[in-house]
């Protein structure tokens, strides 16, 4: 059934097209072009130290560029004192400043970001500033909002008669499901959707559900439920006087993926890094070096193990406290090895289909939130996608983290995260390394590093225009499933 996905994605056959899009010459402003073609010593020095346009030419890049070589160092600011960040910034010759000073690049926590963008702060960013979050990233990263946005996206497509929203009879219930957009487990928000949940629960009385607090991360407050009575008990207690905080908080309850793919008998999930440079038009990149996070304990669905979170949760922060956590590999296994194993034991076709489906899932989750995202040109964001693969090799989106951990658990982890940050910087910054909102955000193939283009709606539209003028097939989007 996934075979059809390709028709819309232009995945397999469209690979070449994707490459072309990356390489095709973007609309450089004349100054960019000159700078890149005729580097003088002065300009080289400017590139080395970073370049800032003079005060008077903010609106006119073309005229200003020639005077823009004041040797101003780029100031960075970070809320996280992580070496993978600071080392990367310093490698580029940037110097650290405070948030109150004139900064050019801010690696901020979500709270700082919220303050900067709030109307009350009165802070207005200038053209040469960049920050690592979108103001309302929670549309994607909050579990309840993500589901809400995806549901709305599917409804909208359905209303427009889009073939993507095709539905089919579900094989195990009276309901229907989406053929191409069924990539999140059935989810309800509690307490709001309690009645809908009960209705769904009654259809599958033997199923297990997982409860997660909407706002928390790293596995905090998560528990499993396989009886309605347990949920009722929980809700009674939550209303009681001892847990006032739970009562305020909303939860999501999702169908638990109880048939996960096991490798070596152990459950795992995928952590993939997705960089969004812009939401409108959507420009997103997938980091090729994701990893699988393994549970330390054998997978076991028996009721006695239902409360053993080491069996069910793959979060490193949870697993770290298990007795069997190994500090040399940290339970992390590369996606490349996963692909090698699956190709060797299951075949190439199913493996390609799985990774194609993963790219598909990411693109459509981003499209689902794109209309509501405040697509500020100062922003980019790196998301940690958590995906579970079931034993039919179908990927399920579990959640999206807007501040994926930059703590390194092992040596390889450190190398990976250092490279991740380095590659993020080279993708989101213009070729001369100075933040500039006027840049068209089309990185060169070299700048991509270990990122691969998932989708660039702008380039896709250009391609489409070109293709239709050439009277050839138009492609709606670009998806790439080359993982190695």
């Amino acid at each position, binding site marked *: 059934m996934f075979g059809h996905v390709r028709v819309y994605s232009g995945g397999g056959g469209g690979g070449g097209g994707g490459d072309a899009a990356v390489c095709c010459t973007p609309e450089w402003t004349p100054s960019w072009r000159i700078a890149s073609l005729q580097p003088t010593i002065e300009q080289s020095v400017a590139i080395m130290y970073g370049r800032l346009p003079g005060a008077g030419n903010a609106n006119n890049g073309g005229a200003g560029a020639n005077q823009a070589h004041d040797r101003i160092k780029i100031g960075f600011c970070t809320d996280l004192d992580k070496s993978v960040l600071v080392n990367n910034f310093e490698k580029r010759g940037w110097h650290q400043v405070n948030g109150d000073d004139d900064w050019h690049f801010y690696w901020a926590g979500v709270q700082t970001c919220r303050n900067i963008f709030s109307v009350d702060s009165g802070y207005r960013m200038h053209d040469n500033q960049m920050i690592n979050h979108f103001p309302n990233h929670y549309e994607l990263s909050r579990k309840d909002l993500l589901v809400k946005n995806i549901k709305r996206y599917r409804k909208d497509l359905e209303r427009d008669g889009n073939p993507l929203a095709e539905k089919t009879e579900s094989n195990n219930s009276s309901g229907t499901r989406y053929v191409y957009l069924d990539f999140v487990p059935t989810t309800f928000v509690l307490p709001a959707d309690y009645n809908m949940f009960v209705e769904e629960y009654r259809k599958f009385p033997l199923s297990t559900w997982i409860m997660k607090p909407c706002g928390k991360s790293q596995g905090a407050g998560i528990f499993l439920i396989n009886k309605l009575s347990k949920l009722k008990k929980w809700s009674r207690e939550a209303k009681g006087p001892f847990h006032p905080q739970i009562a305020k908080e909303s939860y999501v309850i999702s169908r638990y993926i109880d048939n996960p793919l096991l*490798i*070596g*008998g*152990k459950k*795992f999930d995928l952590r993939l890094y997705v960089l969004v440079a812009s939401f409108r038009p959507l420009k997103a990149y997938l980091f090729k070096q994701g990893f*699988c996070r*393994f549970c330390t*304990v*054998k997978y076991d669905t028996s009721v006695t193990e239902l409360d053993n979170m080491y069996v069910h949760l793959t979060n490193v922060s949870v697993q770290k406290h298990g007795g*069997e956590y*190994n500090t*040399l*590999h940290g*339970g*992390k*296994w*590369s996606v*490349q*090895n996963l692909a*090698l*194993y699956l*190709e*060797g*034991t*299951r*075949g*190439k076709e199913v493996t390609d289909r799985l990774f194609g489906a993963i790219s598909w899932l990411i693109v459509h989750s981003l499209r689902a939130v794109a209309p509501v995202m405040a697509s500020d040109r100062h922003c980019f964001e790196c998301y940690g996608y958590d995906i579970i693969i079931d034993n039919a090799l179908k990927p399920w989106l579990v959640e999206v983290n807007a501040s994926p951990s930059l703590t390194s658990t*092992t040596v*390889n982890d450190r190398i990976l995260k250092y490279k991740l940050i380095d590659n993020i910087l080279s993708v989101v910054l213009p070729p001369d390394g100075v933040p500039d909102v006027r840049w068209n955000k089309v990185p060169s193939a070299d700048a991509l590093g270990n990122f691969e283009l998932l989708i660039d709606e702008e380039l896709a539209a250009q391609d489409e225009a070109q293709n239709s003028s050439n009277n050839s097939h138009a492609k709606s989007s670009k998806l790439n499933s080359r993982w190695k």
Partner: protein
Amino acid sequence: MEELQDASIHHMTAKVIAAIKNTKCYEPIYEELQRLVASPSVDKNDMRNTLEDAIKAAGLETEIRNMIYNLVRSRLEKLDVSDTRQTSTSKATQSDPLGYLKRAGVLWDRRVRKSLNAMCGELKVPLHGQPRISADREDFVAKWNELSNYNMDLSNYRPVYAPKDLLEVLLSLKGPARTTESTDQIPQWEFSHIALPVKNLFELRTHYADLLRSDHYTVPDQCQRILDSRHAPMCQQYLKKGCTPAPYRGALWASVLDSKLHDYDIEYWQKLRNVVWTTDHIVDKLVFKDIQLTASNDDQYFVFEDVLYQVLLCFSRDTDIANCVDYEQFPVKGKTYEGPPSGVVPFHGICMFAAPFCYLYDSPVCLYYTFRAFYIRYCHRLTTINTHPQGIVSLCLLFEKLLQTYEPQLWSHFRELQIQPLRVVFKWLMRGFSGHLPPDQLLVLWDLILGFDSLEILPLFAIIILSFRKESIMQVASLDSIEAILADLSSIKVLPLVQLALSRD
């Protein structure tokens, strides 16, 4: 002349037939043949032709061909060797120029077994193992699929030996020349004086010539068609390309190594498993210890920990291995020591021979037989001292000679630093690079071992890596720094580097 040829063919046929009768597959094939003879398609008036046709139609012909191919490759070669050996042992052993090497081989094997015996004595456990007490047996059986959760105290167990122990023995090998010649003529830190014939680069180029042939006519389903044909030699030829598609590798390797599963193999596996379940053996502890020290900590292989326990435990009980591996034989006086049932004493890192197979097979049984065949054909030569042209001694020698001849600068750099170059690469050689190269590249290297049926690719590849990182090595002056330069092989790509090394002038 023709008569002679005829006679030799008859002699060969007789040997092959005798060998076939000793294999496990003889009986099923014989039964199948009986069934065919009785089938209506065979006409008793034209028995010869109709039976031949029936054999071909049933696909039995390919099976018999493969069987003969593998027999001629492995066992008959061994028979010939032992024939000549019997005649030669009657002569004075002193006259054998490699006698000291064979002697060293026997002594090494004895030393390893002696350590195992000593360990048994120290820990007061019988070498032959003891029945598991019922509670332990139940626990063991219940946890068979998750042996990482099987608890036991391993604090008193140490690996019997590690690569550096074998290296020290190799470096101390003294030829008969030592006693007569003055000692300063032979440098203390090399062993090129050993009189084993090894290939030079020219001969290696000839041997690996197929690797440089660029055939652009690769048909997408070529691999599948070769597998469908079931001809082992064709599968082997395909592996020579060095670009085996991952989905086909498992089947190709099984075909080349003649390790496709038969019913009797599955029964035998279950038998081995039952022996593991019922008896507690000291090698179990050593196997657990080894996996915990290596694979469990390896970010490429840790997910397969539990599969590896099963495979290596059954391996330790498999008496067929002792029968298939040809150990060096030389009359040496002194006590002999018994080993584990398989004859293989686990050493530090033995599980890394099995680990790469986890990327090929989902089922432990398939994994087991292909790994076992690979071990019998190749790996055991890397941990025993022997005179075989692909034994570890020859491989070390090949490494040294290649380094001397083709990287003289590096050679003299090592010499100035008084570092034996072998020290730097020995662990690669002894483990066949497993655990050092990332799995996708390691499997390519092992494709080439199987395709060209030779371990000589290991020293060649070691030279290639040294050569590739030569500039950095030339800049440092200590063993630690050199090892640091060579520690991370994650960026090494096997095929292009080997091709480059073989093609350049």
